[in-house]
């Protein structure tokens, strides 16, 4: 019988939660020597957990565990920019994705690395040199606190040459040649600020594809958007949501029209509107939205959820999980209709991912 595993990346290490029934969870951790963990995932092919972490003292590394967190190793061999490469400095690794036999790593300053030996060594794939906007997105004066650089990697499930990346604050890009060349995928997105480039300069927070990878949803700094052509064009679907701002999002694994998002106050707070926790769901691809709050705190709940802070499993009736930037973890086993807090009180949560393990 398979068990459910949640990997929870936090400001103070990685935690592993396990459950037979998605209701009662055991908690192990903190792992990775309590380094700040920005993203942790389980590679289904190798059974290895990979965690992207960056210590204030000891720099960045990809941690890995082949036994579900019981023992760990780390490596940063090759994770760095060549001297003189435009002065780029690697401040953190922010995203890690196993895909088609290699491990892809996103970093700040914005760069993409790969490992073909299971996370022991890494090599630079690209810093998107020569692309419009690169100078600006690597300019510290234009970066928000906690800047993630290359904040997301979205592999195509069947085509190893094709994947998408997000450069925080600037663009979604797609490659169809394993990262050699990139096309900006921002057509139709809204932006409410002056821009230096027609195709670049969009604040993409989160892209959540449906299982067909033609339908995609995007939480942007300004608005929720949907694509029906693999990100080549976008249509805004914000109407009906309480705010246009948020980070975390998830697409239903069996229904491309069903999608979840956690809208936040768009001001400085970036917490739940009116201090009431809620996840919002559409079942018609964004034409209408339903507020899901049963079991979630509805008073004085001024918490936020970061861009990798929500996960959905692929069971027949999918479960959803989200962690707050102040360390509470919530779960639903009925597609978001009702929720309960699980696991305990954690350090600030940066990422939540789910895996089913035999």
């Amino acid at each position, binding site marked *: 019988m398979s068990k459910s595993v949640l990997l929870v990346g936090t400001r103070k290490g990685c935690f592993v939660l396990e459950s037979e029934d998605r209701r009662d969870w055991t908690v192990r951790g903190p792992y990775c*020597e309590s380094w700040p963990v920005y993203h942790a995932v389980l590679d289904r092919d190798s059974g290895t957990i990979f965690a992207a972490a960056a*210590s*204030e*003292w*000891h*720099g960045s*590394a990809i941690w890995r565990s082949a036994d579900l967190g019981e023992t760990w190793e*780390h*490596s*940063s*061999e090759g994770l*760095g*920019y060549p*001297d003189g490469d435009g002065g780029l*400095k*690697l401040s953190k690794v922010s995203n890690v994705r196993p895909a088609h036999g290699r491990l892809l790593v996103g970093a700040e300053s914005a760069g993409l690395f790969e490992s073909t030996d299971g996370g022991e060594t890494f090599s630079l794939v690209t810093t998107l040199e020569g692309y419009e906007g690169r100078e600006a997105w690597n300019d510290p004066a234009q970066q928000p606190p906690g800047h993630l650089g290359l904040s997301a990697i979205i592999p195509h499930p069947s085509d190893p040459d094709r994947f998408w990346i997000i450069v925080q604050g600037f663009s979604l890009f797609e490659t169809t040649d394993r990262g050699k060349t990139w096309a900006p995928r921002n057509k139709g997105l809204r932006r409410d600020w002056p821009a230096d480039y027609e195709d670049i300069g969009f604040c993409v927070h989160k892209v959540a594809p449906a299982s067909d990878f033609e339908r995609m949803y995007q939480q942007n700094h300004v608005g929720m958007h949907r694509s029906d052509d693999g990100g080549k064009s976008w249509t805004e679907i914000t109407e009906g949501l309480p705010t246009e701002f948020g980070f975390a999002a998830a697409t239903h694994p069996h229904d491309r029209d069903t999608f979840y998002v956690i809208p936040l106050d768009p001001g400085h707070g970036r917490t739940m509107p009116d201090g009431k926790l809620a996840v919002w769901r559409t079942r018609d691809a964004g034409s209408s939205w339903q507020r899901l709050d049963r079991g979630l705190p509805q008073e004085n709940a001024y918490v936020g959820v970061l861009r990798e802070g929500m996960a959905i499993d692929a069971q027949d009736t999918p479960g959803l999980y989200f962690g707050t930037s102040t360390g509470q973890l919530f779960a639903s086993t009925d597609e978001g209709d009702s929720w309960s807090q699980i696991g305990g009180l954690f350090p600030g949560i940066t990422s939540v991912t789910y895996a089913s393990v035999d």
Partner: protein
Amino acid sequence: MAELHLPATLPPLFPGLPRELDIDAATVSEAIDRLDERWPGFRDRLVEAGPALRPHINVYVDRARGELDTELAADSRVDVIAAISGG
């Protein structure tokens, strides 16, 4: 042999690495290299591109602030200190 003292955050990263050990090296950088040979990846934990000591890593040689190229005497004491940062 210089006497090297490491912060508590390092031994958990490298099995068998002690907090204190004697190193035969002419400079701070060379001492770090000696440890990197025995515990691969050690240098990355203290040194960033440049090369330079990481921003929150301080090295004192005989109680004086040192850098990577600071020379070590045969009886030097080297303290590697992880600065108080974060919360």
